Each structure stands twice: as structure tokens, then as C-alpha cells.
């Protein structure tokens, strides 16, 4: 579970975290709020409201326990029942992902675990997940982004997998805004500083700028891991007498107030908060933790495992106990600390990074500890699985927590938040992009092409991605700026997996249902364009405040759209993350569902790159091009306009296109393929030409005008480069399957020429495309 939270931003400003230091001073306290003391003092005032709990939620806790909660219990409930950990606003909508899930034999582990697991054949299983670290990354860009990588990597590791790649879908405010110059370089350095040190290739992602993200940048992080089927591990504690081992970094005061806020009735607010709400990462420790854990997996020493992320030990202990059979007893004072003055509540709440919690049979504990020692990883037996049904936590022999773990971890509140289509939606959709003035001459077309490919969103992101190691592990087949990132997973059989992430907040703002489907369609298309067969998805749903009915409507529509589309495409949701409250004052971000699609390729030698590497290859445009400019890059770059309807989605067509692209790759009929999305055909041709170092001569097909041909963002399309020897075979296949394939030109020379309209040299295109980002951030 990620340490991100919608409450993080508020938490830093809230008075309650100020109580921490005061509490620490009092320890060891005669007034330790034990279960016994809580039973004897039912009328003590408790700061439930400051902790973000509603009155009825607090009453429910009292009803569950049959007494008032102790300070430690209240702290645990408050954080575990927070929006971030309990999904209380989103749950009712997310359940569609299960209800509408397509029949799919590949799904080995579904929603609810640390990450979903997919069968990719040959005995291999792949786990992947994308999640958010949005708020911390705005407060402290470097550490926020760094620990976002760390958190998702531990999620993947906890499934039993070796992490093999990461990706980062990012959204920032306006590219030329002064604060973007603070946030972006910090985020990029954090991702690089942490990820590079872990030895995980960063193989893709996105960077998008829009003023709507100015106060709420989105820092999403994805990790992919690989294991054999028999190595899948789950987060559960079973087997009476089994030991609970906490291993990894010592627990410190960092990250308290990150996912939530801390409480005890003895706190007061006489001292200012000193502890940062954002966690501080140590990638070296995480690298040791990865290698150590993989060795522990190899020797099959585990009964259950959970990483520590949001809500720290509160989350790990309650989730492990809740998912298993029996109860758990923890001696909290045995937890190794970085700061000896931490109170039990703080220890329970700390979100210190690089920690894992394992359930180990007594006979295997010695070997477990030996492996940890080899890797210089601190490991401590902090408790054991009991035959009871309670999670009991002790502090120097005194019981401070005694709860049914399910009520903490899995039976939190569920809200049916009101939602309503906002009134402005009609106005927005009526503001049609079709009425925007279009270029009239070849010279105007050329000018707008250069403007488009050099705009911050469409420009090369190499300055950013060159700060990430994409080669480490020696298995990278494709990495950015390719359509998908692809890694080899078996050198003997050449089995590989591909992942692409996409999301378009502008489309989703215009029509949340369609926008979410377009995000999935694009990622699906990207995976297929690189030659892989799409299997399953993970999503990160970034939205504004759920307390705003308009935002909740966007959320409801987007999840409905995504669930419907997953059903049609046969790609189940394996897991993901919801990030709400991406909102500053009244202004929410564009609704931004980010979708990651995972695909498999049986032989990576058959992968399809985007580069126009050879002259003389014939260019075919697959799919139908319509006049679709609502939410387009053209409308944004040329007219700073957002209105109308996004491109239509035809999921049957997407599926067919995907099948054609993977078949053509497998049978060697195409040498390059690039999906068409934001920026349209001209963006794709520019990228493929620059990547391959060859130009293209293009002819506007019959029935289309040059402008629509170049800039339309109709979905379900790709451009492919076909060797002349394969042309007949390829067009026959498209014809037989009823996929429109239009010959639009040939790879040739060092200019991109649109016959009868204009011609632009690769040098000019390169200058426009590659200078923008360094110009803004160097």
C-alpha cells in the first residue's frame, strides 16, 4: 500500500501532529493509555475529530470494542479508516472491476492483494501495479517521488517477485510556471536518485503539463516483477506460534502524519511539529532489502509477507492478521528504533521506509535471521501468530491494543457519496473544437506542425528520461520513447513482457466515461504496437475531492467506462490505486485515470520498434481518420482550447487493430509501428522519423484534407512501416479482417514531406522537438 494520501497535504497543516513531541517526553508514562485504563475511564475526551474521524465512525469503534479505544487503537483506526487506506469513497464504484471482470485464465491473483498477478506462460507469473505519491511530491518533490518508487517496489517484492522494471507517469503544472521549475527537477532527481540506486531499469512512463496540475502534480509510479507460479506469496498471517518478524530499516519519526495523523487523549498542542510528514528514503537499504528478501523466498522460509507503506505497522499487522487465520500478538517495545523517544502510537503510525514484515515458522527463524545478517539487514522477532481472534499489541508488558483485526483492516466505513453531472459539462461539450480556425495553406500547416512537435507535451522527454537508468539488469528490449517498455524475462526462450501507461486528463474532463476508455485503449494499442499481446491492466485513478458531487460524478463515470472497456477488451483490472483530493481550494485537477497495460511476447526478437530505420519501407495508416479535435493537442497548442467531445472509442476496432499488429509482428510483416494518439499522425511520423534517422514522403489519402490527416486524434489507429516484399501479405491480412489500411507514403530521405503541402527537414523537426524541455529546465 502506498504511503500517499489525500490527507497528507492537510496533515502538515493540522495541529495534531504537534502533539508528538510532547507525548514523547512523557514516556515511559504512568498514564500509558492501556486497554485496562481505557476500560476504566470510558468518559475521557478523545481527539477523534482532529484525526479525521466522523462522529459516527468514532461511535462505531466504541461499539466494536465495547469501550472507548485506547490512544493506540484510535490512531490505528483513524489511519486505516482514512480515505487512502480504506477506499471508503471509491469502494462502491471500484467493485465494478470485479463484477464486470472478463473471463481471463491468465489472472492468478486479483484485486485486494499488494498487487495482481498474471500468468504469462512457461511457468512464469508477472505482477505489476501503478500507484500514486502525489501529495508528498508536491510538498517535497525529491523525497516524495523517491519514496513513491520505493513503496511500489516493495509492493511488488511482497508478492514474491523480483522487481524487473519501473515506469513513472507524471503530470505537472504549466511547463513555464516558476513552481514547475521547483517540482519537476526535484521529482525527476528523486525518481532517478532512488530508482537508479535499486538497479531497476526505468523503461517508460509519461510527462504531461497542464495548468490544472499546478498545485497538484501527479507522481504515479509503476513496478513490474517476475516470479515462477509456485513463488507467489500472499499477505496473511496463519499458523499458531509462527513468528512475526520485522526487518529492514529501523523505525523513525519520519512520515508520521504522512498518510494520517496521530492521536492520544494525552496529547496537547503546546509544541510545534518538527517531524516531516514526508518520508525519507534510503535506496541502499531498499536494495539490500530486495536482495535479502529474494534469498529468503528462494529458501522458502515464509508463510506470509507484507511490506510497510502507508500506516506502517498499523497496516501491516492488522492486514496480515485480518487476512490469515487466528490472531496476532506483538511486543511493540521490541521494534528497533532510530529515535528512542518515539511513543508507541508513533511507532505504530511511522511510515519509515524500507521495512517489511514476515510470518515465519519457528523452525525457520534462525535461517531467516542468518540471511538478514548476511545482507546487513536488521531483523527482529516482534510477535507471533496466536490461536485467538484478536490483534493484541503490548508495550513493556502492558496491553495497549486489543482489537478484531478485520474491523481495522477490511471492514472500514463505506460511503455512497452523492454525485451529479455538473452543469458546466454541457457548456464544455458544446464548445466544439470543430469551429476553431484551421491552417489554410501549406506554410501554415508546416508552422503548426513545428509548433506542435515542439510544444512541451509533445516535445522529446529525453532530458528527463536520460536521468534514469534504462539498461540495468541487462534485459531491456524497448524503453522510452518506444510505444511500450519491454523486458526479457527468460533468456532461454526469449519470453518477454511489455508495459505501457497512458492517461489523458483533457479527454476525461470532456467526457469521463469516454476519457477513461481512451486511456485504456491507448495503452492497449501501445502494447500491441510493440508486438506484445495485452493481458491485464492496473490503474491509478487521480481525481479531485470526493466531497464535490461533480468530482464524484467524474469518478463514477470514469470507473464505469473503464470497467466496461476492460470487459470488452478482455483485460481484467488486477489492482491499482485511488488518489483523491488532488485539489487546491475549489480547483480540482482534470480527472486523470492512468491506465497501465501489461502484455506478453513469446519471442522478443519479434518486437516492433517505432523507428523508421530503413528507407523504402511503405507506410500504411491503419484505422479510420475522422474530424476529431476535441481535447486534442492541436487545440491546446494552437488555440489553448479545451471543449467539445473527445475522440470516439470503438473497442471492437481496438481489439482488431491489436490482433493485426501482434500478428504482423509475429510473422515479420512490419518493421516499425507507432500508435496514433495525442498530436495525431504528424506527431507519430515525426517521432518515428527522428528515431530512425529517415524522413517520410506522405500523400494525403482520398477523402481527407491535409489538416485532418495530420492532426486528427481519432482512436484505433496506428502507422506501420512495411517492407515491399511483405506488402501484399500484409494488406491481404488487413482486408480479410476488415481493418482499413491506407497506403500513405514511404520512408525516404531526410525530410518529412506532405505532397503538395509542405516539406520540413529532419534537422528542423529535431531542433523543434528536442530543444524545448532542456530549454525550460536546464
Amino acid at each position, binding site marked *: 500500500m502506498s504511503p500517499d494520501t489525500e490527507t497528507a497535504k492537510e496533515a502538515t497543516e493540522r495541529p495534531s501532529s504537534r502533539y508528538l513531541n510532547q507525548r514523547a517526553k512523557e514516556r515511559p508514562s504512568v498514564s500509558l493509555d492501556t486497554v485496562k485504563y481505557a476500560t476504566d475511564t470510558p468518559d475521557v475526551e478523545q481527539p477523534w475529530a482532529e484525526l479525521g474521524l466522523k462522529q459516527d465512525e468514532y461511535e462505531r469503534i466504541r461499539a466494536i470494542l465495547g469501550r472507548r479505544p485506547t490512544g493506540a487503537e484510535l490512531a490505528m483506526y483513524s489511519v486505516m479508516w482514512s480515505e487512502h487506506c480504506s477506499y471508503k469513497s471509491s469502494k462502491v464504484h471500484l467493485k465494478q472491476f470485479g463484477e464486470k471482470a472478463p473471463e481471463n485464465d491468465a489472472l492468478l491473483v486479483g484485486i485486494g492483494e499488494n498487487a495482481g498477478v498474471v500468468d504469462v506462460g512457461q511457468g512464469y507469473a508477472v505482477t505489476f501495479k501503478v500507484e500514486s505519491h502525489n501529495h508528498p511530491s508536491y510538498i517535497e518533490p525529491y523525497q516524495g517521488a523517491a519514496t513513491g518508487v520505493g513503496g511500489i517496489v516493495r509492493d511488488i517484492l511482497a508478492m514474491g517477485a523480483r522487481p524487473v522494471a519501473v515506469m513513472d507517469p507524471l503530470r505537472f503544472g504549466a511547463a513555464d510556471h516558476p513552481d514547475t521549475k521547483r517540482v519537476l527537477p526535484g521529482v525527476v532527481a528523486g525518481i*532517478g536518485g532512488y530508482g537508479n540506486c535499486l*538497479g531497476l531499469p526505468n523503461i517508460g512512463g509519461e510527462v504531461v503539463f497542464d495548468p490544472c496540475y499546478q498545485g497538484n502534480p501527479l507522481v504515479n509510479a509503476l513496478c513490474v516483477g517476475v516470479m515462477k507460479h509456485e513463488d507467489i506469496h500472499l499477505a496473511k498471517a496463519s499458523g499458531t506460534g509462527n513468528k512475526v518478524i520485522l526487518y529492514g530499516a529501523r523505525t523513525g519519526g519520519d512520515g508520521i502524519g504522512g498518510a494520517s495523523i496521530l492521536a492520544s487523549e494525552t496529547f496537547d498542542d503546546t509544541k510545534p511539529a518538527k517531524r516531516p510528514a514526508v518520508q525519507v528514503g534510503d535506496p541502499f537499504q531498499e536494495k539490500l532489502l530486495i536482495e535479502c528478501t529474494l534469498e529468503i523466498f528462494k529458501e522458502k522460509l515464509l508463510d506470509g509477507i507484507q511490506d510497510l507503506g502507508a500506516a506502517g505497522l498499523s497496516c501491516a499487522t492488522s492486514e496480515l492478521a485480518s487476512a490469515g487465520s487466528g490472531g496476532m500478538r506483538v511486543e511493540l517495545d521490541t521494534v528497533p528504533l532510530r529515535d528512542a523517544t518515539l511513543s508507541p502510537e508513533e511507532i505504530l503510525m511511522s511510515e519509515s521506509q524500507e521495512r517489511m514484515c514476515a510470518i515465519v515458522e519457528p523452525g525457520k527463524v534462525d535461517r531467516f535471521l542468518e540471511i538478514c545478517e548476511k545482507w546487513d539487514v536488521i531483523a527482529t522477532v516482534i510477535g507471533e501468530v496466536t490461536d485467538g481472534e484478536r490483534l493484541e499489541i503490548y508495550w513493556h508488558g502492558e496491553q495497549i491494543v486489543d482489537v478484531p483485526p478485520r474491523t481495522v483492516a477490511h471492514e472500514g466505513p463505506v460511503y455512497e457519496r452523492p454525485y451529479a453531472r455538473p452543469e458546466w459539462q454541457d457548456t464544455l461539450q458544446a464548445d466544439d473544437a470543430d469551429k476553431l480556425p484551421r491552417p489554410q495553406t501549406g506554410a501554415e500547416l508546416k508552422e503548426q506542425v513545428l509548433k506542435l512537435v515542439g510544444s512541451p507535451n509533445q516535445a522529446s522527454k529525453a532530458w528527463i528520461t*536520460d536521468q534514469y*537508468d534504462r539498461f*540495468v539488469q*541487462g534485459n531491456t528490449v524497448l524503453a522510452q520513447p518506444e510505444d511500450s517498455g519491454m523486458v526479457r524475462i527468460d533468456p532461454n526462450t526469449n519470453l518477454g513482457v511489455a508495459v505501457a501507461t497512458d492517461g489523458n486528463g483533457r479527454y476525461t474532463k470532456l467526457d469521463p466515461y469516454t476519457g477513461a476508455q481512451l486511456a485504456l485503449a491507448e495503452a492497449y494499442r501501445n502494447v500491441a504496437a510493440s508486438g506484445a499481446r495485452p493481458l491485464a491492466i492496473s490503474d491509478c485513478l487521480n481525481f479531485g475531492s470526493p466531497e464535490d458531487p461533480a468530482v464524484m460524478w467524474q469518478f463514477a463515470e470514469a470507473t464505469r467506462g473503464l470497467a466496461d472497456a476492460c470487459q470488452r477488451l478482455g483485460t481484467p483490472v488486477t489492482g491499482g490505486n485511488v488518489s483523491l483530493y488532488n485539489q487546491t481550494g475549489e480547483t480540482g485537477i482534470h480527472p486523470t485515470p492512468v491506465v497501465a497495460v501489461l502484455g506478453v511476447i513469446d519471442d522478443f526478437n519479434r518486437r516492433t520498434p517505432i523507428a523508421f530505420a530503413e528507407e523504402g519501407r511503405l507506410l500504411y495508416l491503419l484505422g479510420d481518420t475522422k474530424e476529431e479535435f476535441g481535447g486534442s493537442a492541436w487545440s491546446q497548442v494552437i488555440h489553448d482550447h479545451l471543449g467539445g467531445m473527445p475522440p470516439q472509442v470503438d473497442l471492437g476496432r481496438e481489439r482488431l487493430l491489436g490482433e493485426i499488429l501482434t500478428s504482423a509482428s509475429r510473422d515479420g510483416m512490419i518493421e516499425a509501428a507507432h500508435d496514433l494518439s495525442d498530436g495525431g499522425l504528424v506527431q507519430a511520423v515525426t517521432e518515428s522519423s527522428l528515431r530512425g534517422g529517415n524522413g517520410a514522403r506522405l500523400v494525403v489519402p482520398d477523402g481527407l484534407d491535409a489538416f485532418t490527416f495530420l492532426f486528427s486524434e481519432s482512436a484505433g489507429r496506428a502507422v506501420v512501416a512495411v517492407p515491399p516484399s511483405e506488402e501484399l501479405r500484409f494488406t491481404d491480412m488487413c482486408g480479410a479482417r476488415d481493418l482499413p489500411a491506407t497506403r500513405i507514403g514511404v520512408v525516404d530521405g531526410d525530410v518529412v514531406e506532405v505532397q503538395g503541402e509542405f516539406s520540413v527537414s529532419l534537422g528542423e523537426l529535431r531542433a523543434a522537438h528536442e530543444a524545448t524541455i532542456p530549454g525550460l529546465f536546464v
Partner: protein
Amino acid sequence: MTSRIGVITFPGTLDDRDTLRAVRIAGAEPIPLWHHDKGLKQVDAVVLPGGFSYGDYLRAGAISRFSPVMESVIEQAKAGMPVLGICNGFQVLTETHLLPGAMLRNNHLHFICRDQKLRVENADTAWTTDYEPGQEISVPLKSIDGRYVANERVLDELEAEGRIAFRYLDGNPNGSLRDIAGITNTAGNVVGLMPHPEHAVEPLIGTGRTDGLAFFTSILKKLANA
């Protein structure tokens, strides 16, 4: 019997498995070595791979240099055993003074990962005989502390003795003095470089080129003829 080439894993080493793979692809027997090992398991040559050993805390390579295994490496390198340091391994070799100079943070202060063009300036070292002198190759570069520095006297000496093994081409990526990408000791058995030949040994993987493989075939030939 084929040669045994050891690859050391320090805590925080990242490219050990890649380097073991490159050794195997070249036809040698890869031998994993652990930083706590006292001996070198009778290997014929040693590679110190890339990564962030000990998190590069304090200074890149500064802590690894004191690992138990490094005592044996230093001793045997001085006796003529071939040693290759890649990236972090190069930093460790300068910390041990098996190679002169030091690595500072890149002049632009950012990590840089790119396919880097190099010129092979010395094709007579234990690790470069399968290259032609002056040959241009491309291998990945990925580092943040890659700026090679030494005083003028040392630099002149390196130039005069032909001990600059590799130079950056098409733009100096990090501000290294005299475009130095890699150097060798006087005897030619110890070589260190910042770019990563082990990431360029298989078609379609990484850069898709195999320009780095000659490092590993060079040493294999050298050992076979020894």
C-alpha cells in the same frame, strides 16, 4: 578448461548479474564473489561491476575499498592479475589507488544514461586486445559521478604512456578531463572505465549492439594464451 572470471558483489552493487552474464556469453566461467570473501576462489581475473556500493555514501567507492575481498584484489592486481572496474568498479579502483585520479559529480549535476560513443585509445591492455586501436564503439553510459579528474602531471603522464584507454566522442557527457572515459595502469592488467560494456553484449538487448563483448573476449584470449 575455460578461464574463471570473478565478479564481485558489494552491498549495493547493481550490475553483477549482468556482468556474470556477459562473462558467460563470452565463453568464460563466471564466478560470483562476495565482498566478505577473504580469497578470490582461484579466479583468473576479476571484474568490479557497476552500481552504488554502500549507497555511494561518503563518496563513490570509498567504503567498498575496505571490503575484505579488496585486500586480495589489490594484492593480486599488483602481482599482475587482470582486473576490470566498470563505473562504480572504476571508482573503487581509484579509491584503492590501483588507478590514479578520482571521479567527481558530472559537471551538469544530473545522472546521465545514454548510448555513448567511445574511441579505443589503447588496444593493448588485458581487456582491449580484441579492439583495433582507434576503433569507435558505442556502449551505454549511466552515472552521476563520472567526471574523471587528476592533476595535470598525472594527466600528462597518462597521455605520454598511452594509458588513456578510452575517450568520449561526440560530446563529453560529464566534464571528464581530456575526455577520459577509461584508463589503465602501467602494466595494462588493471583497466577502469565509466561506460558499461556488459550492457552491450547481445543483439536487441539494451542498445541492441554488441560493441562491449570484446572486453570479455579479449581477456579470455589473454588468459588462454597465458
